[in-house]
């Protein structure tokens, strides 16, 4: 049975120069479509992609990724903001690699655009009052 699933992949620093996606495509017969990709300041990679293929190929591919040291999360895992905790200081703005957290120059409020967020989770530890949370 063919399936299509969107996943978020976190590549630790030591895997950054490995041809992981090449092996995934070559050996597991899964079609992939990269939706978003970025390299964080810690030189880790975050890749959001859609994987299509037979269930067994998909599972094999995910196992290969996990065994290689790549962290895999379904895209349904998203980041949310605790509005009571957020102080709108703006620390997260410089950390967010995709511009999902933006300081409104008029109100000086930090706006969180969830549709832009790739759930890289960088803002979570950078936020001083820890207002950003992962929702499962």
């Amino acid at each position: 049975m063919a399936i299509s699933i969107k996943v978020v992949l976190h590549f630790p620093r030591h895997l950054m120069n490995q041809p992981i996606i090449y092996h995934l495509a070559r050996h597991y017969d899964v079609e992939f479509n990269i939706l978003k990709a970025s390299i964080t300041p810690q030189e880790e990679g975050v890749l959001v992609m859609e994987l299509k293929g037979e269930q067994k190929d998909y599972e094999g591919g995910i196992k290969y990724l996990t065994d290689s040291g790549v962290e895999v999360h379904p895209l349904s895992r998203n980041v949310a903001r605790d509005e009571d905790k957020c102080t709108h200081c703006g620390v997260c703005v410089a950390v967010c690699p995709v511009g999902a957290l933006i300081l409104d120059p008029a109100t000086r409020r930090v706006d969180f655009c969830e549709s832009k967020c790739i759930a890289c989770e960088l803002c979570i530890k950078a936020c001083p009052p820890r207002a950003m949370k992962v929702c499962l």
Partner: protein
Amino acid sequence: MLKTIVEINERIQKGEAVVVTAEEVIDIAEKNGITRATQEIDVVTTATFGPMCSSGAYFNIGQAKPRIKFGGSTIYLNDVPAYAGWAAADLYLGATAIPDHDPRNKVYPGEFIYGGGHVIEDLLEGKDVRLVASAYGTDCYPKRKLETWVNLDDFNQAVLFNVRNASQNYNVAVNSSNRIIYTYMGMLKPNLGNATYSSAGQLSPLLNDPYYKTIGIGTRIFLGGGIGYVTWQGTQHNPDVLRSEDGVPRGCGGTLAVIGDLKQMSSRWLRGTSFLGYGCNMMVGIGIPIPILSEEMLRYTMVKDADIVAPVVDYSDAYPQRKSDILGEVSYAELKSGKIVLREKEVPTASLSSYYKAVEIAHTLKRWIQKGEFLLTEPVAPLPGIESGIILKPLEERPAGVSIAKNGSIYRRRE
């Protein structure tokens, strides 16, 4: 034309006082002119909301039965160590204290999820916290072990007492090295990848009263959502700082020590924070009214972001190594635009203090004064100014391995 604080307070009590924020005063004075604006405006409210490390609270808890002596004991609130070197039932909890079991930076960068500031925030939210004390026992205080839940209501006194807050101005932090660094100014990306700053700029209290002409010891203030007072100059108070022509400091400058009843305060305005790879801290909200006693005071409050500059400091080298070199100066108008230019490179900026919250505090204080709920105070004594000759001293280490101190005394360690 000169006004007095007594006259302004009479107007506040009659509900007639004209109060504007330090942001609003800029346009009003530019439009109406300084003379007219001075006649019209009674009070300008200033504010800041940002991480302020030298903060904390002291508490007194009623005696247990049998009695226990905290003095000389070890004491924890939710595993965060508190200072107990006082009488039997008093303790002080600092905002940056962290549990003994916190891994700190052993796993780098450490997360510092919970510390003294978070305990204070939990207490303000009405939560129970676990108080654990281990004492040595005396004839009059026989109890040696205490483990109990306590909340803010259980304390006889709970007092926020911060020894260094509301820094007059502050550094802009950058990182010129080739690796990411984690500092109290947040995460700094390599090769001048970002710049962080921490000041409310034109809204900040001491930038609107650069020579401490109205803010002094005894000044009544908004503190953490309640009413507090300036108790003293803050630690590292440095009136000798380099200043612009209008008197505005171009570096850290003055600071305030402040006090207030914690039970009146709110977690909206006191917030525990975690700085990755650095430690725990607390964000503190402060608002200070400035009486417009003269044209001179009005002129000070007209200061705007474009006129206030801050030094750009390299936190990968100059700051840790205590070197005085800076990469240049930038204005708060530039910082707030989202990017500054350093070494011909565009560097994105981020703020650690919340201007949004500072504006909210300035408006809250304005409302309190307009409603007649908050009267201004005459300082009991001024803060030390330039004339005081106070100079900020660095530490010149005198290795303590040498047993004879400068005054000739001999220090012997008891083995």
